């Protein structure tokens, strides 16, 4: 290809060979290990496939119908819904407050705090789960010791062994490890807000809280929409590892979540078809929720 003194870039022929060599490896790997397995998951969800791999029969929607008669599934669904209703909202709110404080405080050691708050997020979730199991441990755990020290022995309990609290322990651990991550994202977005807006608000006598609610949050609507979607899908995914490590879904399924139940059905009971129906259902929820929140942020933008 000799260089032609052509002003129009479009007239240049595409380097087909180069494009193929560049694009194909990634695309082939994605087809093999992402797209094809996903299609396979969808197909399996309509069969009664088991780990024995014999006589896969097409059962149409039976798996999906059975799902809603399965008490353990319903429980996992309710648990996941509880986590999704609580964890993303609190996480995003806490991370916004932290980001706002760090952004506005102008302390010398601001970078140090940012680093420290972000740190829990890079620790392996397995390690996080193990450490927090000890924090909630009935005999040696921090929580019970602190309650004992301030005279609230009546509240002491086996946090992860109590069906009332196990799920909320997982929720707290999720919050602890994710808050710093979203905080960093929010700080980056806040840096883009011009300080003059805050200054004029200060002159008008606005309190810090007021500034957060009336200036920062509306200006960062888009970013908050994105981080909220990330937090939603993060809750679905990460709750699996924590529930697996910290409680194994127990006691009696009180802290089981959708993906964890899918794992149990698939690899413990060997019901591949049924497990895949649960997966497809979960994936559908996560896609639907993110589309919904995208719509909502778009709509509120259009309304302005």
């Amino acid at each position, binding site marked *: 290809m000799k260089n032609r003194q052509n002003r129009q870039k479009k007239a*240049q022929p595409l380097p087909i060979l180069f494009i193929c060599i560049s*694009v194909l490896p990634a695309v082939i790997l994605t087809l*093999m290990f992402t797209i094809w397995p996903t299609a396979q998951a969808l197909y399996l969800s309509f069969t009664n496939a088991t780990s024995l791999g014999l006589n896969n029969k097409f059962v149409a929607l039976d798996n999906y119908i059975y799902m809603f008669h399965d008490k353990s599934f319903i429980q996992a669904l309710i648990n996941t819904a509880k986590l999704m209703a609580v964890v993303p909202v609190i996480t995003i709110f806490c991370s916004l407050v932290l980001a706002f404080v760090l952004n506005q405080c102008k302390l010398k050691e601001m970078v140090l705090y940012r680093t420290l708050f972000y740190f829990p997020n890079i620790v392996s*979730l397995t390690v996080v789960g193990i450490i927090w199991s000890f924090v909630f441990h009935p005999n040696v755990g*921090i929580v019970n010791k602190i309650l004992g020290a301030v005279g609230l022995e009546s509240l002491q309990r086996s946090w992860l062994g109590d069906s009332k609290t196990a799920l909320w322990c997982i929720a707290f651990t999720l919050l602890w490890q994710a808050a*710093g991550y979203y905080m*960093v994202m929010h700080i980056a977005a806040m840096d883009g807000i011009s300080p003059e807006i805050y200054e004029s608000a200060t002159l008008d006598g606005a309190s810090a809280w007021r500034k957060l609610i009336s200036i920062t949050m509306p200006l960062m609507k888009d970013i908050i929409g994105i981080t909220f979607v990330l937090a939603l899908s993060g809750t679905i995914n990460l709750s699996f*590892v924590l529930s697996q490590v910290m409680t194994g879904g127990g006691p009696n399924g009180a802290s089981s979540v959708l993906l964890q139940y899918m794992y149990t059905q698939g690899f413990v009971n060997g019901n591949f078809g049924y497990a895949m129906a649960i997966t497809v259902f*979960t994936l559908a929820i996560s896609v639907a929720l993110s589309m919904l929140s995208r719509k909502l942020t778009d709509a509120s933008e259009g309304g302005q």
Partner: protein
Amino acid sequence: MTQNEKSKIRAKVIKWVTRLFLILVAIIMLYPLAWNVVSSFKTSTEFLTDPFAWPQGFAWDNYVRAYEKSNLAANIGNSIYVVLETLVIIVICVVPCSYCLVRYKFPGAKLILNIYMAAIFIQATYIMIPLFLQMNKLNLLNSLTALGVLYATMQFPFAIFLLTGFLRSIPRDYEEAAMIDGCGPFRILTSIIIPMCKPGIVTVCMISAMAAWNEYPVALVMVTDPTKATLPVGLANLYEIQRYATDWGALFAALVLALIPTVILFIVGQKQLVQGLSVGGVKG
């Protein structure tokens, strides 16, 4: 004058209140980790009598037992191997691919980009079972190399998302100048795009390295041979064993050993990690 002094005092008070608040949050964030490090130096009796007391001495044998009783050394080696492989595959596949997707309007480019955007949702955990069946069929279970390929592939959507965003922000002028000088696309890629994209590539590598280093569910399913387990799986296994053997000192020591490489990587690459979050977040 007094008004001025008053507001000065007020500013100081606010400063210290925020500082106190931040320190409190820092304690909540770090205490569990610090407690873990301190506990790793205690003997089991010390830990059981008072989990909060400072250790009497350094019970280094916790670390010796953690090392001897587990496959920790092998686990760390396996994890390093998988992470390095993941990074190599990602750099080789994602950089040229993102470049072509952004700069050449070939038929299908748009479609491929859209598919990758949608695939961000498909977490590996969801497709664990079909992946397992497929790897079984290909005889690739218990293979660390195959695990690395899987990890790399899982990171493609996010890596391409991040890198295409980065590439779009680079002006075309340099490429056009090089093209006029008779540079082929391959030369442009290696001598213009890669050097200019370095921060983006480093960010992608940092995020992918963290993800691969910490990944648990897929490794749990794909690798059943304990000598080939990666670190998160090895630790979870150790936890299951030590929980009932109540050799907690060794367990805490193992957790600390697992934390050390993460901490090092974090200190080295903190800037890139934070940058990646801002790019990924803002461009979304």
